[in-house]
């Protein structure tokens, strides 16, 4: 018999979720659904914006690296390569597209390259 109220709370909430997901007699409410859909769209916009900001920061970081390149090109290139992937081709935790230590897919790399290209265009538009 459990006396831990947190465990009880967890079980009550789990049951509530199960029941709500399975509730066949829930009354459809279009306005309520539309509100949720607008929250979905806003969330997607937020994710896109955050990714763009992260990509912009990556470009800034690369620019800073470029300044180091003028001092030691070989070392800077080596560091950049190391930042992008280790010898096994696995993503590093510092990478934007790191995937919990798993290997980056070609699609990931293409996506990152596309983001950077887009930012270069934005940068040139700004100047």
């Amino acid at each position, binding site marked *: *018999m*459990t006396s831990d*109220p*947190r*465990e*009880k*709370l967890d*079980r*009550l*909430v*789990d*049951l*509530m*979720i*199960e*029941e*709500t*997901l399975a*509730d066949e*007699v*829930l*009354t*459809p*409410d*279009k306005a*309520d*659904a539309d*509100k*949720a*859909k607008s*929250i*979905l769209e*806003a*969330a*997607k916009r*937020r*994710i896109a914006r955050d990714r763009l900001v992260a990509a912009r920061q990556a470009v800034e970081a690369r620019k800073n690296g470029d300044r180091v390149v003028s001092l030691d090109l070989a070392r800077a290139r080596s560091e950049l390569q190391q930042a992008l992937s280790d010898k096994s081709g696995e993503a590093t935790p510092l990478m*934007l*597209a*790191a*995937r*919990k230590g*798993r290997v980056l*897919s070609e*699609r*990931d790399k293409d*996506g990152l390259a596309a983001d950077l290209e887009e930012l270069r265009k934005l940068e040139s538009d700004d100047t």
Partner: protein
Amino acid sequence: MQQDVVGTDERYSAAEISAALDGFDDLDWNRMNAIARRLSAAFRSMTADELLSEGIVAVLTTRTCKRSVDPRAFLAESMKSIASNASKKKASSEVSFDPALLDKPYRGDDRDEGPRDRAVGKTIASKGIADFAVDANELDRREAAFELANRLQTELDALFAGDEEMRFLLEGVCEGLRGSELSEFVGVDAARLATLRRRLARAFDRIREREMAS
């Protein structure tokens, strides 16, 4: 950390989850809103809209989902986890660290047996103040979680006072009973149990209404 774009044999990709969300019908969204509202009532940490928004962001970015799990359940679980964690963070930010709790000053390499940390039962003689502050926060989070859980139980008990079936249901659920074990414990058949379970889920709405009215 981002979710796999492509996905794997075992897990959905972010794009697949996004497509699944786009495919939700109105009733699915009604259910998601209902869960968000009920979680908000249970954990009191965030509004229902905030929970839904943060839950969506999490399932599209940081969380991953096995293909055996329904995306609706995935989003619901994500909201639950966010609500629970937010209530803990809220609790720890509301109570400040009290230096008076330290009845023995920290001395570098002091290994003498010192006062016991009542939260986790460890000696604190060899700890720094920052470590102890973390433990104090952990203690605080645990106490807040106990308080939250006790409050919900008290409110549900009050809602169902005098209703023997619901009181047995509450007790059975809290003890981890499900299915036939639960219906046997409550003393009802499967159809009646389904009705009682639905009443319990909807009780969270009543708690929320009371909160909003107060």
